[in-house]
């Protein structure tokens, strides 16, 4: 009988194994820059962009252009993951990047198809998922699945690597302007993901010295004692990597205690009853109530497979955990805590989480209508209320769909609303032009 044991072995899936490259459809000849017009432009080809593109394809909306600053689908997410040497996703097999309802191959079946490539631990995780238990997904499986999903829904041939500078409504169209291109679109979907949260300005006395880095920057060689600031999964990976290198680590939690969880948000938010606590389509939910829920539910936590590793390291002195106190300052020599204590280290890594990109900098501030850091979205469609031709999927839709909106499963929910709305608009437009 298979029993669920949250052991660190679940974290050690092989990465970059010799995964077969399937014959991909030939890419049609095309210009180096995106076309001048399209029914839909999707800005960002991460998991949310991929899900939107797949859903639109199934709804018959094929004149779609994707623009992504990094290039291949989900590339930035995978770069971040690999930068942390993260081998599995906390998101389970059920949360596959794609769409439901069209009999597309799902993530778990994709893994089963490649049974011979999976380790015994990975196969057991598939079985756990089949039995309705929580599972972790190897990054290799996720990456190959994203490639397949992109190929079958024409994402690969409709994706251009470029920076978008401006998104500007223009009558019944939306202009998408970037480096050397301009696209006139009927509708635009912003799938911008999340950006690194920077340190509060008061923490640093001046320019950031080389001894202070962020989680997405490499740690220089030769560090003897590393200070990691943050309470989430990223911090856990940084600590684990440092311990593996033989570095002693000081962990500044900025909270009372570590939070070990299977999922980064409460599982109820992946279900209708959890979403109903946010979604005013069902019953009115006040803004303040949503803010309070977000503050409570969108909190840093660590996959509990890390728990034995970190507890063992703390017990044997390789890891020192500073609980129950916040940070006052960060210097090249460590950090100062609000209780007056200093934590010394020759390198400090800040892992302070991420901030949803809500369209600021692309759309005008007025059109984003930001309130408490969240965009002003129409809850039925996830379009910006002040720019109805522009939609937001992913983390930016958290105040409508709840904290799970930033997860793979939430992307599908956002996608369903957005794609149905866009497809209806495109059909109406086609009818008008007949």
């Amino acid at each position, binding site marked *: *009988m*298979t029993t669920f044991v949250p052991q660190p072995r679940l974290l050690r899936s092989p990465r970059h194994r010799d995964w*077969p490259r*399937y*014959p991909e*459809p*030939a890419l049609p000849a095309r210009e180096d820059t995106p076309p001048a017009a399209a029914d839909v432009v999707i800005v960002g080809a991460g998991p949310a962009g991929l899900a939107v593109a797949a859903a639109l*394809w199934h709804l018959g909306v094929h004149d779609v252009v994707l623009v992504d600053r990094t290039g291949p689908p989900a590339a930035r997410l995978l770069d971040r993951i690999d930068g942390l040497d993260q081998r599995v996703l906390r998101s389970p097999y059920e949360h596959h990047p794609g769409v439901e309802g069209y*009999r*597309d*191959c799902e993530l778990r*079946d994709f893994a*089963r*198809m*490649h*049974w*011979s490539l999976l380790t*015994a631990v990975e*196969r*057991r995780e*598939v*079985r*756990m998922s*089949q*039995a309705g238990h929580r599972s972790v997904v190897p990054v290799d499986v996720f990456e190959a699945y994203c490639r*397949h999903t992109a*190929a*079958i*829904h*024409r994402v690969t041939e409709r994706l251009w690597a470029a920076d978008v500078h401006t998104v500007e409504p223009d009558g019944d169209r939306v202009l998408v302007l970037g480096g050397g291109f301009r696209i006139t679109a009927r509708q635009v979907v912003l799938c911008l993901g999340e950006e690194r949260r920077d340190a509060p300005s008061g923490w640093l006395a001046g320019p950031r010295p080389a001894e202070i880095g962020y989680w997405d920057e490499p740690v220089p060689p030769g560090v003897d004692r590393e200070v990691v600031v943050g309470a989430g999964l990223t911090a856990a990976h940084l600590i684990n990597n440092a311990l593996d290198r033989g570095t002693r680590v000081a962990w500044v939690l900025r909270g009372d205690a570590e939070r070990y969880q299977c999922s980064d948000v409460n599982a109820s938010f992946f279900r209708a009853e959890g979403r109903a606590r946010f979604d005013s389509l069902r019953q009115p939910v006040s803004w303040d109530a949503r803010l309070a829920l977000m503050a409570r539910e969108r909190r840093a936590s660590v996959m509990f497979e890390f728990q034995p590793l970190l507890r063992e390291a703390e017990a044997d002195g390789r890891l020192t955990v500073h609980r129950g106190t916040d940070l006052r300052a960060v210097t090249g020599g460590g950090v100062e805590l609000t209780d007056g204590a200093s934590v010394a280290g020759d390198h400090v890594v800040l892992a302070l989480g991420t901030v949803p990109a809500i369209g600021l900098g692309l759309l005008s501030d007025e059109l984003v209508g930001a309130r408490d850091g969240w965009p002003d979205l129409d809850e039925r469609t996830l379009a910006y209320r002040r720019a109805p031709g522009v939609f937001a999927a992913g983390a930016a839709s958290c105040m409508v769909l709840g904290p799970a909106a930033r997860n793979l499963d939430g992307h599908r929910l956002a996608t369903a609303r957005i794609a149905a709305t866009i497809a209806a608009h495109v059909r109406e437009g086609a009818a008008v032009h007949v």
Partner: protein
Amino acid sequence: MSEQYDTLFSLPSIDDDPDTELGVLLMGLGPDRLLAGLGVAGRDPTADPATVTLLVDQLRHGARAELMFSDAVAAGARRWQVACEGFVAANLSLGLRSAALRRLWESAADMIAAFSDATPQLRTTGAAERVYLIACWLRLAEIATIAEEHVVLPELPS
């Protein structure tokens, strides 16, 4: 009173042949996809079953200009017609079907393997064609419905 039911359960093995895992998965797919897979597999003896399955997924989405999904289904129907002649020649039938899908798959695979030397119509060109032929046989009633739109099938042994 003693416990009437065994409340323990175990998950399926993780050590079965990878083709069995894929086979069980294929048994849940639509018959048109199985026939298309049989057709695609016959075109490339070196293709592995997973590659063929993903290629069929590409064809379903119209992602390849050189081959349409309907053409792959038609090719699969022709191959199924030949296989059916082999099942008749060998007087081979599934017989009693196990409710355990993995055992069912293994049993069907063993039967085809045992008869393929003496029955040229059941000989396959590679792993993918073998897996898809087994899958089609296990779903033969539904496969026959689709295949008969393209070819004339003999009556199979019951």
